[in-house]
């Protein structure tokens, strides 16, 4: 479904991703872990199409297409979804109106009829229930005045409604209490299917107790340093990133 080959990305002349390789197939759940500043969010945003990042080398193939050449909205229409680490507040734009516009844009892209409010509202109600969201949130502007937890839940709510094929979750678990975490995990698990793939970017192993990944990758300093099964997450938790970074220095320094 997704293949990232030797991806190099710069911001302000500083290289942040330094040769990322990753292959994700339909039906799989991958987790990317790594210390702060290692480039996880950069990778996620580049996949979603954020234009402030400069891609200096490499390619990303999504469903046989060159993802990097597609506009952000085109990627979304083709099934790519990013749950933002820091969801953006959009004052004055109603949360539900926005989501309906998004869903209809995607439906239109696939040649489907647009949904009217009558069809859309039951869908919204169902998904809100799944995520235990307060009814009030539907009357508010997108993320405006939401608490941290509400914003994260709102991301998963959007994902549940839009039903992407490739979902990338960027630290959706950070800052959540255990109840909220379980709800978010439920939302993610509900989306799991043989046709879909999920990339869970996380700083902590905790979420992976509820969303069990097929693969775990460790990102350090703009590269994926190590990949393995779900046991790698536990190992990381035990040893800490520092140890791994030290090991990586030892491996990479003779070559540089």
């Amino acid at each position, binding site marked *: 479904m997704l293949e990232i080959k030797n991806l190099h990305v710069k911001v302000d002349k500083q290289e942040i991703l330094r040769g990322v390789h990753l292959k994700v197939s339909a039906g799989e759940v991958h987790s990317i872990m790594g210390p702060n500043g290692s480039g996880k969010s950069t990778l996620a945003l580049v996949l979603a199409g954020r234009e402030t990042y400069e891609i200096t080398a490499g390619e990303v193939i999504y469903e046989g297409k060159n993802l990097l050449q597609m506009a952000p909205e085109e*990627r979304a229409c083709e099934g790519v979804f990013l749950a933002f680490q820091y969801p*953006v507040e959009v004052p004055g734009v109603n949360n539900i109106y926005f989501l309906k516009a998004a869903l209809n844009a995607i439906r239109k892209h696939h040649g489907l009829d647009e949904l009217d409010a009558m069809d859309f509202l039951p869908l919204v109600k169902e998904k809100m229930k799944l995520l235990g969201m307060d009814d009030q949130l539907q009357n508010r502007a997108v993320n405006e005045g939401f608490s941290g937890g509400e914003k994260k839940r709102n991301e998963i709510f959007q994902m549940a409604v839009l039903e992407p094929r490739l979902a990338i979750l960027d630290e959706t678990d950070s800052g959540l209490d255990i109840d909220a975490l379980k709800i978010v995990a439920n939302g993610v698990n509900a989306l799991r299917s043989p046709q879909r793939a999920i990339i869970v970017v996380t700083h902590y192993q905790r979420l992976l107790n509820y969303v069990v990944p097929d693969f775990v990758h460790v990102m350090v300093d703009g590269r994926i340093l190590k990949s393995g099964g779900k046991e790698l997450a536990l190992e990381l938790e035990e040893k800490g990133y520092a140890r791994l970074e030290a090991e990586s220095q030892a491996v990479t320094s003779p070559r540089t």
Partner: protein
Amino acid sequence: MIARTQAQDSYLESFAQFDKGAAKNGQGWLSPIRRAAIACFAELGFPTTHDEDWRFTNVGPIAQISFRLLQDGGNELTPLDLEQFSSSGFACSRFVFVNGRYVPGLSSPPQLPGDLKVNSLAHALTADRDSLEQHLARYADYQHDAFCALNTAFMEDGAFVCIPPGAVLQEPIYLLYVSTAGAVPTIVHPRNLILAGNNSQATVVEEYVSLGADVHFSNVVTEVVVGENSVLTHYLIERESTQAFKVSTLRTQQGRSSNVASHSLLLGGALVRNNVHPVLAGEGSDCLINGLFMATGQQHMDNYMKVEHASPHCNSRQFYNGILDGKSRGVFHGRIIVHKDAQKTDAKQTNKNLLLSDEAQIDTKPQLEIHADDVKCTHGATIGQIDEDAVFYLRSRGIAEASALDLLLFAFASENFQRMKAEPIRSYLQELVKQWLSRGKLLEEAR
């Protein structure tokens, strides 16, 4: 002393003609006011950018063009010509003015409730002399404002609205002003007088449009006298062509415990000056001044607010939002004057602007003149660009870039809509803003 300009001379000459004709119409009683006004204009001349109140707006183009005074209406127009403007979609009593003249044949008023009187000013000048004499030209300051002086000198027609005490009008009174410019640049001076009796409640809408795209100049003055404890909502919709010059002055005089809302939506015009001048004359009165101006191309929109607190315990709220694209230029000049006795004044002013292009420009200037000591006055202005993070967020959900921009701009404009009552007229304004937003796309589709 600056020499009189040629244009100024031509106004003085045409006034001499005009005055003679008017005297014959039984409007002789007005002559002293008209003459006083033209004398003020002769004295004042057109303002220049050295004038503090006109620092950001050069009226040179207006002063240089010799406009022909239009004295005939557009009786040749048929309702069909106005069809494009009748999409208003809200129930109302409609009064149509063509080139400043009331045209009954195009209007759809007659079933007015009770003692409500809506007339052409021309008719009222002879038929309603008593009410008019008491109020007309008593508020709008022709002594210090050249455009107001011109309007007062040449005023002939417009709307005279008299809302009886205690009346509560369900539907807005809708005044549509159509300019049909021709080969020669023309000028009209619509003059409106609105008298709202004590304890009354009404909504008056003024909308200005052009037929065709020729150069013309609308110089409008509206005086509103709001009685005690009455509620008046005024809308100004500016939609003239991008060749139109427009100066409009809304002067309200508020009685005790009255409540006025002035909503302006400026979309059209080449050079627009929007003067809003409420005087909170009665104790405990309240006014809301809510405006949205959206300019593109070479448009210039100048909003000049002069909020006068003349009595204690009055509230004023000014909210003006500007969206400026292309090479357009916007001005917001917000004056608040608190008179010596106006204790417990609570005045607030906010001006927010969005610049959509590098070449668009905004000048914003608060001006507080406070002569009382127990007052609360705040002001704030912001100038910003579209939030790129928000655009990306919307796009990342599948919404096309142009639609994402529209959504954000509409959200910005919504701040103004939220301050209007949820009336059908508000939906009409929202529709106009949506049309403005989609202008680029229509062009693209046409290509």
